[in-house]
Every structure is written in structure tokens, then in C-alpha cells.
């Protein structure tokens, strides 16, 4: 083997002025621009690729396009994919190629790729740039309809590129030129449509000439023309996986398009007319074609005569029974098709070109909801009925031959343009070419399998059906033996058709073999398996495109964020928000920092950024009535200037959100929601206002990002508020708990200050316009400095509220918890109705043994029970014999308390209130610890601290 040893001295569509060097498994090869990796391998005498995935059998290149099951490679290049068919990778300078046995590896540095997304809206989308697609695009664009043409090759022409007919290639070149000159036409080469969804929405991947550039096209078309062509099928016989066995049309592609010889002595096996072209082209390229093995008793005379003239023997009524050889095909044994199948001849050959007929590529059509129907004459499933605004034309619906394809494409193009309101073209397409006669094909004689002369199908492990999956007739026979009947079951049992090649060479063959095994005449009655997106492999990173990191999931920060960073806060993600978790000082861990922050809030003064709480303004004469219907407690009679805590339930009576509602004026309320629940609460309001209570005059507006909120907490907070708001009367009598005051801070910032507490301590929330948020924070920090004001984060907030037994919706509740379960009977109005109230008296919701919120005190004061821990009874045995161990509930919150000097927890516990005083147990690490059940309040039970 020498470099370019198997390259024809002339011809092909490669650019011989652009020589390229590359390596395959470390061996240097020479190629030209226009080569694929596969064609360059063949031109350099490399016919064997990596062995098969499961059975390590030698394998070669089977096809010349995306049907390739064997020749999978990894390319060590910036941005390459883990595994690609060598038949679709364009050769570029210095490309390092490694053959793969069916399993690739993800590239660790995927950011090296240029990936983008493009949206396109078009009148007519044409998929496929062969004769059909070109004719369709020409016809559709003649009346100035906007046309988008996608083709997966670097060069337009489709199947014509595999031939040598100069007149037809000229036609394709002329058509391409004409299309590119039309302003409303966009031609995208190297672009493969892989998904076809509702309402003519298609996805396509466009590749650059190199592997590191890809673009995802998202296309909405008024009308679609599918000109996706057809795939050649192999035939199943013994040893049909040996290197040297190739699809007949692929051998044409290699000699004609790439000027690469796939072998030197060839046998052609066929069931139809098309392989004769391959035989003649191979012979013309200098391959010694020993015989055409035709399953038909009477091959067409004209083709037989041409073969004879080229010195090729035609063996009619014969099939290949076996390809033999150690590492590649060395000989082909031919048998009579009719029984008894006696051996006719054994021929020495290194290339066996096979054509088992053609399957229209109906993948996209089928994805779009189109229905297929078996056609006995063509031995294929053909499109029958479209569900969307589309045409499928040419070989993709079994119209073979240039003239038929052009005529069919033209008709589809005209219809497509007309359906978009564009006039039909009145000039015919390049007369002379479109009327060029295509010979009428002779009927084929399908051969799905050439049975072995001995043994049972379940033993035929060398009759391969799916080369990528290493699945054989024996596997299908075994699936049948296990009771599988339908192609769908066979597919799942054998994995046939589930490889990255999407079963292009195995799907229908498997159905044919199944029909044969079940004694059915043809596969027609069995149907096909479903075609699904993606029709060709695409990477997740392409689908993601630029939508990664911050562009996928935005980071929300409050205006006070710079101050948190200066203070060295550790941040916690709460929804999309970054919230300060705790502020560790020099030498502190989280534990020490939280204890210090808690102590400051309980004994001095502390401050936190509460701006992320959802905030909604409700304005309108019916705002009070609206709140009354949604919250479990009443708000209609809330005094102006007052605040009230409220809980909302879903229709099922389960707690949905909570927050504080302020009444600012007769018709103006403003309320807070949980940080994560803000959007959901606004949606909930809108749903009721728009769909159920359209008579209520209320407007709900999100003001979360309009207000910044700083909580000032602790026994000395009144002094800090007094210092920052000189005009405000702050005594308990003049500014009592749960009231709101509008004032101007000493630094001139207007502020709305609320006396509300989520810690049990004397506390205030200072609300200012968002753009003053940072200034307000700094003012409070400055005024509080003399009192040792301490910033605290979400962890301290959680500890403080848990010590008081205030539940957090979404942490201590999970959508199965009622206000009654939380022990909040006091907030559930007896007098008025509200959403969910009726559900609280449903038999299941009113059960006494529901899980209820309780406190837990671990017997070991220093042991922290992990949140989520399961709780069991004190005497419940934990042994495999009584599994599953009956669970009583779980821990929802668990902390170290500075105020208590010990750990504590909140839990949802079955019949929890009845168990107060009892002991439960829970696993911590690999041991069980005990805890006493308590009321869910641990600190300041009498509520003496909130007024300072």
C-alpha cells in the first residue's frame, strides 16, 4: 500500500490542485480537497476500519454517506464530535483520524466550538439538492416566492454527483447558478435537516468545512418540499459484514466522484436494475468485474447486453450465498435462487457490491406525521398521505430516474409556490433536459435473506442485519422465539436500528428478515418502526448553542449586591437570585459566622438584604375583596397603614404561599411573596382575575424589582431606625407592631418602613426605590455602626425564624401540607370563604393522623439531624425482616441555635401534635439518634421580644 495508490489517474470531483495530508490511526494518507475521510482512506488502500463493537469482527467501509454503519471515526481537532461516520467528514489538511469501534468519547474542552443558532421564516423550504430538489427550488422561486434550499453535501447535485453524465452534471451546475442569482433564494450547503415538527417547523444542522463550526437552523416554512432521495439496501447472506462488501451505489460514488478504487476484482449482487450502472462504472474505472449476480430470472435485455459488451458475465436467477475470507472478502459463493439452492460458482473477488433495492428516505416525512404504505412493485414503504403543508417528491416517493425526479420536483415546487400565493411559472424548465427519457425500470425481485443451507435461523450468526449493532438473523430468530412479533418489539429486543446511523441500512432489512422468518410474503403487512428526530446525530451542545451558563439561567442580584461582596459574603442560590448566605469574618467557618450573626440579632442589632422577596402591588376598588377570597384570613377590613401576615392555599387546601400584606390606601395594597414563589403568585392572581372573577376591578403588578428592602432586626433596631429616619416617631406607641410609615431618611431618600418581624425580635423593614437600595444599606450600616450592627445572611434568617417556629413555604411544606397541619388554625377564617377552604373538611384533609409540623430536640445537644432525615418510632425495629421500616415523617429544617445553646429541628410528623413529649428516632450517619418531639417553637414562646 502506498499513498494514493488506489487513486484513479484522472476524473472525479476532487480538486487535484489542492493536495492534503492527514493520518488515519497514525498512518499518513494523501488526499485532495473534495475527498471525505472515507474516500481518502480507500484511495490510500485502507479498506478496513476498526473492528465491530460487540463481536470484534473485521469491518470495512459499507457506504458513502450518512447511512454508514461501520466506518466511525474520532477526529482530534478543535471542536470535533466524539464519533462521526468517515463518509461524512470532509478531508482537511493535517486531520488526525482515529477509527472507532462504535463508541466515542466526549471531548473535555467543548467550548472550543463556534456554535450558533439561526431562525428562518420562508415561503418554501426544499430539503435536498439533488435533481428533484433543484427542480422544485427553481420552479418555486420563479414567481419570487422566498425559497430556502438545504443540501447536506458541499456541492449541489445529489445522486448526480455519483455519476459521470456530463450533461446532467452541467444541468445541476446551471440550476445551482440560477438559484444563487435569485435574490429571494437562499441555498445552504453542508446542511442536514434532522427534525420535522408540527406546523412545518424544522431543525437543521449546518456544518462548516472544518468541524469546529456548526449552526443550528430553526425553520418555519409555509410549505415544505421533501426531496430526500432514497437509500440503497444491503442483502443478508453469510459473511455479509466482511470488509469489501459495499453498497453498489457507494462503489459508484467512490470511483466517479472521488476517483478512488474500492477494490480490484469485483462481483455485483443485485435484485434490480441500478447495480448495472455500478458494474459498468467500476469496469470503466479499470476494476475487473467478474460477474453480475441478478436474482431475477430474466434480467432486462438492454442492461445484459451492455454488461456483455463490457465483458461482464450476468448470472441470472442467482444470489450470493456467502462471502468468505479471513480479514476481508476473498471469494464469493453464488447459488441458484430457486430451490434447491445448488452452488453455481465460487468467484475470487476483493469487492462485493450489493444492491438489495432502494428505500425512499421517508424519515422526515414520517416524523411530520405522514403515513406510509407498502408498494409491492418497488418493494418499499412509500409516502401515502401528508399531514402537513408539504410535498414529497422524486426518489423520496419512489419516482426514480432523472427525468421523473425533475418532473416530480417541478410539480412540487409549483404547487408549493401556489399554496403561498405565488403564480406558477410559465416557462418550462430547460426543455430538452426535463424531457430527457428515463428508461423504464424492470421489476425487481427482492431478496431479504439468502438462507444458509444448513442449521436453523437461530444459529445464523454470520448473516448480519445491523452492522453497527452487530445484530444478526440469529438475534431476530431468538427475538421471535421469545414471542416478539412486531418490528417495534424486534427493534427493542435486538437493538437493530438504534445505532447512530438510525438503521438506514438495517431497518427495512430487519422487517424483511422478520417477514421471511414468519413465513409472510413481504414486509408490507408488518409496517416499519417509527422514524424519530434527530435523523442524523446532533450534539446537545449544538442544540444549546450560546444558551449556556448565564445566558441559559440568568443570575439575579439586588442593588445591594456590591456591599455583600465587599463584606465577603458567601452566596446561596435562591431561584435565580444570589443571596448572601452568611458573612464569615477572618478565621470563621459557616458555623461560627451563623452563631455570631444570630447572637447579634437576638442581643444587639443586625441587618439583612430582603430585596429578593416577591412584591406585588394590588390596586383597585375590589382589591380587599380579592385578597379576602385568596388568603385564608381577612384583609378587607385591614386598617390603612397596617400590615398583616397571610397564607394562601390552592383549591386543594394545601399551603401555596405566604407573606405580609400592607394596606397603603383605600384601594391600594402591596404584598410580599416568598422569593421563589413571586412569579407563581402573580400568575395565580391573574388566573383568578382573568378567568373566574372577571367582574372584580383589581390590577396586579409585580414590583419586586422596583423596591429594595433592608431588614433591621434586634433589641437595638429602634435606635438605628430613629437615627436614619429623624422625622419618624419610633416609640412603640407611635409606631406599633404591624404598621407601616412613609418617611424620608436623613440622607434624603424616601422610605416606606414596616414594623414586621420574621425573627421574633423587634424589627423593621426599610423599603426604598431600587436605585436607592445601596445608599439605604450604607446609611443603615453607618447609623448602626455605633450599635455594632451585624449583616446576616439567609442561614441566620432561617435559624432565627425556626427558633420561633415560623415555617418556610417550600421548605417546611411541600404542597401536601394544610395550614391546620402547620398548627396555624388561628389564621384560617371561620367567617369567610376562601380558595381551598372547602378542601380542609374533605375526609382525607380532616384526618387526625396527618403529618403535622412539630419541633424536635435531639437528645445529644450537639447532634445536627440532617434535613430530609426520615423519622421512625422509638421502638420500631430496624431490621431487614420487618422491612420496609414504617416511617412517621421527616425533618424539614435543622440548625444549631446560639440562643438555645444546642441543636433543634422542625419536622412533619404523623399525628405529630399527639406525640409531643414522645421520642422518635432517626439515622444520623450510620447510627440511630433519639429526639424528643416538642411544640414547634423554641424561643420566646410568650412573644415578649417583638416590641423591644
Amino acid at each position, binding site marked *: 500500500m502506498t499513498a494514493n495508490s488506489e487513486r484513479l489517474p484522472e476524473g472525479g470531483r476532487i480538486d487535484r490542485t489542492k493536495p492534503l495530508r492527514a493520518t488515519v490511526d497514525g498512518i499518513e494518507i494523501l488526499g485532495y480537497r473534495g475527498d471525505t475521510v472515507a474516500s481518502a482512506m480507500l484511495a490510500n488502500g485502507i479498506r478496513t476500519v476498526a473492528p465491530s463493537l460487540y463481536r470484534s469482527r473485521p469491518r470495512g467501509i459499507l457506504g458513502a454517506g450518512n447511512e454508514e454503519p461501520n466506518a466511525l471515526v474520532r477526529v482530534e481537532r478543535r471542536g470535533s464530535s466524539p464519533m462521526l461516520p468517515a463518509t461524512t467528514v470532509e478531508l482537511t489538511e493535517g486531520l488526525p483520524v482515529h477509527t472507532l469501534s462504535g463508541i466515542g468519547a466526549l471531548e473535555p474542552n467543548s467550548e472550543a466550538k463556534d456554535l450558533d443558532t439561526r431562525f428562518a421564516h420562508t415561503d418554501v423550504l426544499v430539503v435536498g439538492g439533488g435533481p428533484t430538489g433543484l427542480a422544485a427550488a427553481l420552479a418555486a422561486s420563479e414567481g419570487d416566492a422566498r425559497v430556502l434550499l438545504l443540501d447536506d453535501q458541499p456541492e449541489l447535485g445529489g445522486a448526480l454527483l455519483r455519476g459521470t453524465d456530463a450533461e446532467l452534471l452541467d444541468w445541476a451546475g446551471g440550476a445551482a447558478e440560477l438559484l444563487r442569482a435569485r435574490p429571494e433564494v437562499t441555498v445552504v450547503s453542508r446542511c442536514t435537516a434532522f427534525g420535522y415538527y408540527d406546523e412545518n417547523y424544522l431543525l437543521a444542522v449546518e456544518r462548516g468545512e472544518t468541524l469546529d463550526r456548526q449552526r443550528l437552523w430553526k425553520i*418555519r416554512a409555509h410549505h415544505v418540499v421533501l426531496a430526500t432521495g432514497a437509500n440503497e439496501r444491503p442483502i443478508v447472506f453469510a459473511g455479509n459484514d466482511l470488509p469489501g462488501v459495499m453498497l453498489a451505489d457507494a462503489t459508484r460514488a467512490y470511483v466517479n466522484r472521488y476517483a478512488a478504487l474500492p477494490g480490484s476484482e469485483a462481483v455485483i449482487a443485485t435484485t434490480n436494475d441500478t447495480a448495472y450502472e455500478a458494474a459498468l462504472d467500476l469496469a470503466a474505472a479499470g476494476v475487473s468485474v467478474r460477474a453480475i449476480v441478478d436474482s431475477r430470472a430474466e434480467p432486462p435485455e438492454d442492461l445484459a447486453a451492455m454488461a456483455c459488451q463490457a465483458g461482464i458475465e450476468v448470472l441470472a436467477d442467482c444470489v450470493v450465498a456467502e462471502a468468505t475470507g479471513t480479514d476481508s472478502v476473498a471469494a464469493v459463493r453464488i447459488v441458484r435462487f430457486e430451490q434447491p439452492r445448488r452452488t453455481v460458482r465460487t468467484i475470487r473477488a476483493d469487492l462485493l457490491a450489493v444492491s438489495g433495492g432502494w428505500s425512499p428516505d421517508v424519515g422526515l416525512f414520517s416524523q411530520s406525521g405522514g403515513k406510509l404504505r407498502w408498494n409491492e412493485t418497488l418493494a418499499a414503504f412509500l409516502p401515502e398521505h401528508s*399531514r402537513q403543508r408539504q410535498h414529497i417528491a422524486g426518489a423520496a416517493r419512489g419516482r426514480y430516474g432523472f427525468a421523473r425526479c425533475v418532473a416530480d420536483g417541478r410539480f412540487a415546487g409549483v404547487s408549493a409556490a401556489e399554496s403561498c400565493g405565488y403564480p406558477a411559472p410559465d416557462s418550462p424548465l430547460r426543455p430538452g433536459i426535463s424531457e430527457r427519457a428515463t428508461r423504464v425500470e424492470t421489476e425487481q425481485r427482492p431478496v431479504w435473506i439468502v438462507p444458509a443451507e444448513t442449521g436453523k435461523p437461530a444459529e445464523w450468526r454470520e448473516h448480519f442485519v445491523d452492522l453497527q449493532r452487530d445484530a444478526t438473523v440469529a438475534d431476530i430468530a431468538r427475538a421471535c422465539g421469545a414471542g416478539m412479533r412486531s418490528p417495534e418489539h424486534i427493534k427493542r429486543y435486538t437493538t437493530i436500528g438504534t445505532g447512530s446511523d438510525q438503521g438506514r441500512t438495517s431497518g427495512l432489512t430487519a422487517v424483511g428478515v422478520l417477514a421471511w422468518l414468519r413465513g409472510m410474503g413481504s414486509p408490507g403487512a408488518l409496517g416499519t418502526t417509527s422514524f424519530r428526530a434527530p435523523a442524523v446525530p446532533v450534539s446537545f451542545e449544538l442544540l444549546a448553542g450560546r444558551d449556556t451558563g448565564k445566558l441559559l439561567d440568568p443570575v439575579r442580584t439586588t442593588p445591594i449586591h456590591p456591599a455583600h461582596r465587599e463584606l465577603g459574603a458567601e452566596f446561596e442560590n435562591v431561584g435565580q437570585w444570589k443571596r448572601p448566605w452568611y458573612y464569615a469574618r477572618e478565621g470563621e467557618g459557616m458555623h461560627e459566622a451563623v452563631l455570631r450573626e444570630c447572637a447579634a440579632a437576638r442581643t444587639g442589632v443586625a441587618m439583612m438584604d430582603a430585596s429578593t422577596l416577591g412584591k406585588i402591588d394590588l390596586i383597585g376598588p375590589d382589591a380587599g375583596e380579592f385578597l379576602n377570597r385568596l388568603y385564608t384570613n381577612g384583609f378587607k377590613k385591614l386598617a390603612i397603614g397596617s400590615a398583616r401576615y397571610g397564607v394562601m392555599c390552592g383549591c386543594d387546601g394545601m399551603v401555596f404561599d405566604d407573606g405580609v400584606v400592607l394596606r397603603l390606601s383605600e384601594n391600594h395594597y402591596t404584598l410580599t411573596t416568598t422569593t421563589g414563589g413571586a412569579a407563581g403568585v402573580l400568575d395565580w392572581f*391573574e388566573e383568578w382575575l382573568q378567568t373566574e372573577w*372577571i367582574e372584580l376591578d383589581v390590577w396586579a403588578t409585580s414590583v419586586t424589582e422596583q423596591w429594595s428592602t433592608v431588614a433591621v432586626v434586634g433589641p437595638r433596631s429602634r435606635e438605628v431606625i430613629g437615627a436614619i429616619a429623624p422625622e419618624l416617631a419610633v416609640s412603640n406607641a407611635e409606631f406599633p407592631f404591624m404598621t407601616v410609615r412613609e418617611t424620608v431618611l436623613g440622607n434624603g431618600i424616601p422610605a416606606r418602613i414596616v414594623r414586621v418581624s420574621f425573627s421574633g425580635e423587634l424589627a423593621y423593614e426599610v423599603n426604598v426605590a431600587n436605585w436607592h437600595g445601596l445608599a439605604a444599606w450604607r446609611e443603615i450600616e453607618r447609623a448602626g455602626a455605633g450599635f455594632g450592627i451585624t449583616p446576616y445572611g439567609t442561614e441566620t434568617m432561617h435559624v432565627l425564624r425556626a427558633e420561633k417556629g415560623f415555617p418556610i413555604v417550600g421548605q417546611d411544606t411541600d404542597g401536601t401540607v394544610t395550614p391546620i397541619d402547620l398548627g396555624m388554625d388561628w389564621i384560617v377564617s371561620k367567617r369567610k370563604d376562601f380558595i381551598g*377552604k372547602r378542601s380542609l373538611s374533605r375526609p382525607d384533609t380532616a384526618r387526625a393522623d396527618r403529618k403535622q409540623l412539630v419541633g424536635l430536640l435531639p437528645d445529644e445537644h450537639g447532634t445536627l439531624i440532617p434535613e430530609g432525615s426520615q423519622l421512625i418510632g422509638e421502638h420500631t425495629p430496624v431490621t431487614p425482616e420487618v422491612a420496609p421500616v414504617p416511617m412517621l415523617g421527616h425533618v424539614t429544617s435543622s440548625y444549631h441555635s446560639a440562643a438555645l445553646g444546642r441543636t433543634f429541628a422542625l419536622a412533619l410528623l404523623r399525628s405529630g401534635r399527639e406525640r409531643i413529649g414522645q421520642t422518635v428516632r432517626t439515622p444520623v450517619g450510620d447510627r440511630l439518634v433519639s429526639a424528643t418531639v416538642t411544640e414547634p417553637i423554641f424561643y420566646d414562646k410568650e412573644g415578649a421580644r417583638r416590641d423591644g
Partner: protein
Amino acid sequence: MLLIECPWCGQREETEFRYGGQAHVDYPSAPAETGDTEWAEFLFYRDNPAGPFAERWMHAAGCRRWFNAVRDTRTNEFLGVYRIGEGQPA
């Protein structure tokens, strides 16, 4: 991806919308007088026909308005859309 006709904005992509389940399921007017079975049916039971189905949609990434639509659940074809308060088209 479906194209859905918002009665306020016109045809928009499916991803702009939120689904809201069966339409014309009114919140019972007198919940307290509603029996347990009837209430459970309101809460948990919805039709699931193979064919035309009146359902609620909300143009969440658009005008944020709720509307009703009749969709054929076998084909996903939208047979019609109508605003809240308008009767279901025949």
C-alpha cells in the same frame, strides 16, 4: 412546535404559552354546600377525550392573557380560539 393563535396577539410559537387544562370548569359557587364527592370531582377529575377538547391557554411570554381554545387531542390541531367570556364555538 405548534403555532397557536392568541386571540389578542395572533399566531405565536407554542413555547410562548402556558397550558391551563380543561376550560369551562367553574369554581363551585357555594363550596360549603358542595358534597365531598362533588368537590373531589371538581378538584381532581377532568375530561380526557380523544378528539376536540376545550381547554385554557395563557400567552405567558406575550400579552399574559388567558383564553380558551378547542384542540383536537389526536392531531394537536387547533380548531378555534376564543376569549374568556365568549361562548365555545360550535
